[in-house]
């Protein structure tokens, strides 16, 4: 565990840190070339194009299709002035915070902690089930949850006796897709926390136990501080993954009913591909990248401060 290393500060024994002449650096970096080329062409390139196209009226049909013009901040002005865009930003934040930051993260940690103390057979079976939900393809997960939450689906069959039955995908669509995403993504956090918890020396927890610390106090003052770095890294990865979820929501609700579960990726898809407004769609993509960037910067800050 790198709990003690800190970016920027010298970390650990500096065994092989010598300054090389630039030429040696280049020769040694040569095997990196194919990776750098692919990443530049297919990732950095599109991101830069994103920055450019967001300020144009690029379109597949209509006014912008013939001659592309620079339109300045028009796309952003249109986006921030539109109700549909505001709606999708709010929904994206609800979906991300509810399903990743709270749902997957907390449930994943809880499962990892529980598994540490549960009987082997329980631990194994629960582990297999949770990971099973993670392994199956996104679209299949979408169908599963469609079936589970549909009006004549399993959930209503179970709670129908209480008179709570309803068409969840219509009444609470964003909650429905968030639940599905928690179900699908929790395994990742669970595995990350399993790995982190297994590296905490048993003596430290035993010592705290001997000192009379209760389970909750031990968790708060010993376990969590020791895995803080992992928590932050995990939060960053799952937040960014969740921001870009498309297939799951598209199979379950297509963003509907109306626009009640239309997160940014779905709004972007609709604008760019259904309505052919590439410029406007790219502006939305840029906003999505920026939201991801803001989350990353916050987490990076946290990592630096620990």
């Amino acid at each position, binding site marked *: 565990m790198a709990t003690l290393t800190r970016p920027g500060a010298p970390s650990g024994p500096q065994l092989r840190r010598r300054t090389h002449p630039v030429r040696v650096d280049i020769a040694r970096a040569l095997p990196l070339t194919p990776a750098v080329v692919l990443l530049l062409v297919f990732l950095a390139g599109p991101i830069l194009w994103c920055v450019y196209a967001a300020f144009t009226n690029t379109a597949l049909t209509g006014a912008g299709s013939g001659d592309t013009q620079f339109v300045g901040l028009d796309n952003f002005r249109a986006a921030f002035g539109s109700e549909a865009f505001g709606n999708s930003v709010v929904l994206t934040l609800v979906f991300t915070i509810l399903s990743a930051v709270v749902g997957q993260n907390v449930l994943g940690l809880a499962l990892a902690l529980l598994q540490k103390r549960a009987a082997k057979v329980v631990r194994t079976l629960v582990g297999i089930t949770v990971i099973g*939900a993670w392994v199956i*393809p*996104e679209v299949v997960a979408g*169908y599963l949850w469609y079936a589970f939450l549909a009006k004549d689906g399993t959930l209503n069959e179970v709670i129908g006796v209480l008179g709570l039955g309803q068409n969840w995908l219509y009444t609470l669509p964003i909650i429905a897709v968030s639940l599905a995403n928690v179900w699908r993504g929790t395994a990742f956090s669970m595995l990350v926390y399993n790995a982190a918890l297994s590296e905490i020396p048993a003596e430290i927890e035993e010592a705290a136990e001997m000192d009379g610390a209760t389970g909750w106090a031990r968790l708060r003052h010993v376990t969590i501080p020791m895995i803080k770095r*992992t928590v932050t890294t995990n939060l960053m990865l799952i937040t960014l993954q969740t921001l*870009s979820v498309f*297939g799951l929501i598209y199979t379950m609700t297509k963003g509907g009913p109306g626009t009640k579960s239309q997160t940014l990726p779905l709004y972007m898809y609709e604008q760019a591909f259904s309505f052919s407004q590439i410029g406007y769609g790219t502006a939305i993509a840029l906003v999505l990248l920026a939201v991801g960037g803001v989350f990353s910067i916050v987490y990076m800050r946290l990592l630096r401060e620990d």
Partner: protein
Amino acid sequence: MTTETSTTPTATPLAVTSHRPVGPRTWVATAVVNVVTAVLGVMFLVPLLWVVFAAFDARAGLKLEWPGTGFSFDNFRAVLTPETTYRPMWNGLVLCVGSTFIAIVVATLAAYPLSRFETRYKRPFLLTILFSTGLPITAIMVPVYGLFVQLNLVDTIGGTVAFMATTALPMSIFLCKNFMDGVPLTLEEAAWTDGASSMQTLRHIVLPLMWPGLSVVTIFTFIGMWGNFFIPFVLLLSPDRLPASVSIFTFFGQYGSVQWGQLAAYSVLYTLPVVVLYVLLSRRLGGAFNFGGALKG
């Protein structure tokens, strides 16, 4: 969870005779932990069961029901046709094998200098890679589509494979580097003294020692590709080029009423390869989730 259990990772069969008496409170706490864990497990299991039961139920609906008298293989028989199952599966296989192969070769090459040499660019590069592992690929699909239009790559397998490989690269480089760090440097130093080039040492010394790690990265990448929906959904247009991840969506959308049993059967067939691969992988995956140590430098 105020527990005082005697189960520590180092517990021996003699734990009963340990210094701490096993009181009723411990017994209750352990039982509570097991029950809570099991209940959470069941909550994860229930949605999953539907697809299995419905696949074998000729009269399947949306409700979770034991197939009972409706038990049959009719659903599988109905979907096991070239256009529904075989061709999309084959397309998926071509896309996934192609992009996984490119990603692994390129990632291994990139991981070598990152694992073996210390340069001033290493840390910024690794941080960029870590950032990119979480880059919302969805966000760049519009510009990528634009790029593909410019390059005449829309609806081509080659272009899609190259892009899919790139999306997997950050994570593969990251994991490859981690596994490579586990191979001791001493063996290579001996080879370097004997005049071997770094590529020779990579091929003859490092790779043979990191096959387990490399197979983890390979399977992990493949699973990610197999389930990917959005990339082929945007970049491929011809129905006869679509992989299973997309055709499962479009095929069942074309009919007025969905045959839920057939959809479930097809889902099972489509999911089976990743489950098998995951089982092969599961015992070795632990190390891949240790992100904490990943940035030690």
